[in-house]
């Protein structure tokens, strides 16, 4: 009775199809997906189509610096004293911030899944060591270390890496939570009847792990990953806001930092990019909540 009475699920509908149908009923989840699609389009436009490059000071020579918003439709959200156009920074910033959000999460998921799956599947000494390692990374004061690493490495070692360095740092510090989820789920799933049944039918360890356990694990990972993208974007915004990031690539945090310096005179510089951050992060949080409602039957009404 997993469909819950009212709408019987078609025979043979896959878990994924059932989940998608449930997700489609969730309006806020769909809104989140819409917001993410919007920012993805913006990022693609910024990367391939936008004639104005990021961090362009062209306005200094053509006299369109320090414009308020909605005054000139070539610069709908206003410009800075240094000539940088706020709307174009938002466009180019979405490319940068989505890159960090998705890239860092991807690294964290790969490391977290590998370590979590091993820690869950091997119950002996090696499992305990991996679990301890995960716990150790989990309680580190991560933000402080991330700030330190990005400043020091960008200053002395890897200036040219830019945002990719931020992606690596966030990914390398971000996996423990995903490892916990993966381990917990594997410990739960491997004791379920259908796994015992396939074991009784003589399925190999490999087949059990990848045909039966991992597909059931992915739904919880995808929920956590969606929330992790939101968290990584916020952290990236904080890093560049504090001036510890890559000062040559457009990111939302960078333009907010510049806006904070002009808070007394030009409110629009910090205001609009911040709205972009809130919307984008909201999109991923809504998607995560929606997916969690759709894929986690226990919490459903």
């Amino acid at each position, binding site marked *: 009775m997993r469909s819950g009475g009212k709408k019987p699920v078609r025979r043979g509908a896959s878990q994924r199809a059932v989940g998608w149908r449930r997700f489609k009923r969730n309006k806020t989840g769909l809104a989140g997906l819409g917001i993410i699609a919007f920012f993805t389009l913006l990022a693609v436009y910024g990367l391939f189509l936008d004639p104005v490059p990021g961090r362009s000071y062209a306005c200094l020579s053509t006299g369109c610096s320090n414009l308020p918003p909605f005054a000139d439709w070539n610069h709908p959200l206003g410009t800075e004293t240094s000539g940088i156009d706020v709307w174009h920074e938002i466009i180019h910033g979405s490319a940068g911030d989505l890159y960090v959000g998705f890239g860092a999460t991807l690294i964290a998921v790969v490391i977290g899944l590998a370590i979590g799956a091993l820690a869950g599947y091997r119950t002996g000494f090696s499992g305990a060591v991996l679990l301890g390692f995960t716990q150790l990374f989990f309680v580190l*004061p991560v*933000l402080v*270390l991330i*700030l*330190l690493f990005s400043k020091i490495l960008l200053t002395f070692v890897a200036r040219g890496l830019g945002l990719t360095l931020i992606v690596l740092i966030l990914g390398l510090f971000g996996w423990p939570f995903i490892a916990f989820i993966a381990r917990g789920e594997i410990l739960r799933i491997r004791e379920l009847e259908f796994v015992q049944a396939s074991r009784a039918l003589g399925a190999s360890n490999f087949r059990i792990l990848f045909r039966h356990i991992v597909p059931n694990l992915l739904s919880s990972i995808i929920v956590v990953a969606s929330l992790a993208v939101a968290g990584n974007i916020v952290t990236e915004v904080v890093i560049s806001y504090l001036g510890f990031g890559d000062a040559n690539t457009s990111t939302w945090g960078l333009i907010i930092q510049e806006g904070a310096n002009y*808070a007394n005179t030009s409110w629009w510089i*910090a205001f609009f990019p*911040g709205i972009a951050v809130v919307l984008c*992060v909201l999109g991923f949080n809504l998607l995560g909540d929606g997916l969690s409602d759709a894929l986690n039957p226990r919490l459903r009404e």
Partner: protein
Amino acid sequence: MGSLVNYVLRRVLFAIPVFLAVSILTFFATNGVANPYDIVRFGIHNPSAAQLDALKAYFHYDDPVYVRYFLWLSQFLQGDMGKSLYTGTVASNILPWIATTLELQVPALLLSLAIGIPIGVYSAKHQYSKTDLGVSTAAIFGYSTPTFWLGIIAIIIFSADLHWLPSAGAVSGYPPYWWGNIYLDSLAHAILPLSVLTFVSLATIVRLVRANMLDILRQDFVLAARASGLSEWTVTYKHALKNAITPIVTVVGLGFGVLLAGAPALETTFSWPGLGYEYVLAVGKLDLPLVQGLTMIIAVMVLGANVFTDLAYALLDPRVRLG
């Protein structure tokens, strides 16, 4: 009781490898790529050979990095964090900042708990009502808003535009004071950062309390309590909330560890002289000994908060001790 002592002991012992890991990461992040000597040397105009030798000896320039690590760690464990590259010892720099950070973070945490728990419970009790919808919407917006950006907006509105409140620092250095005297002056300085911080933590707490209460209110023991004729108030606040609050202890405890770090971005926005802002300044200036000391102090505070959280959790939920 034996199991509780055992459990706490295990958690305290676990803090030791974490402490060492933080010390290694911190030291190699700061000293693996740059030696403080290199930074100081360029700050001296026409140094003499004797000066340079003294500096080299002071920073153990010729020793390999792992030797310097052990020297630094043994000094740190003896309570000596060294000197800042700018002024004073590391310890004399850090101490006053701890107090200013707590001045901001503790009231914000208490306020957001005091306001957030009742709102979360009410929202869960009236699921899908208009109030619940409003609360949930506000909470997810608050949850998605970077604290420091909200701080900038607050400064733009209340400080730059309306001139109601000061925008920077914890207190005016000299008269004229806001609102007449120095006590009201520090209150005026705290209002904006405190409100912003409370609002954002509030969102997290409301979401958590609401979700946990929804889960608990559906369980059989709540039904049993209702069936035995207890008032709705007793069922909600004595039976359900008690069970819903346990996971919140973890989140608040872990969050408090982060709060102790001073929320670097928010403190920077308000130039609030706490651990977070000073950390950002120290990293920016590459004041390596100060950065090392600050990171370690923050790590110790976070670990301490974690141990206390575990202890509180074990006291509230006996099942934890056995796990």
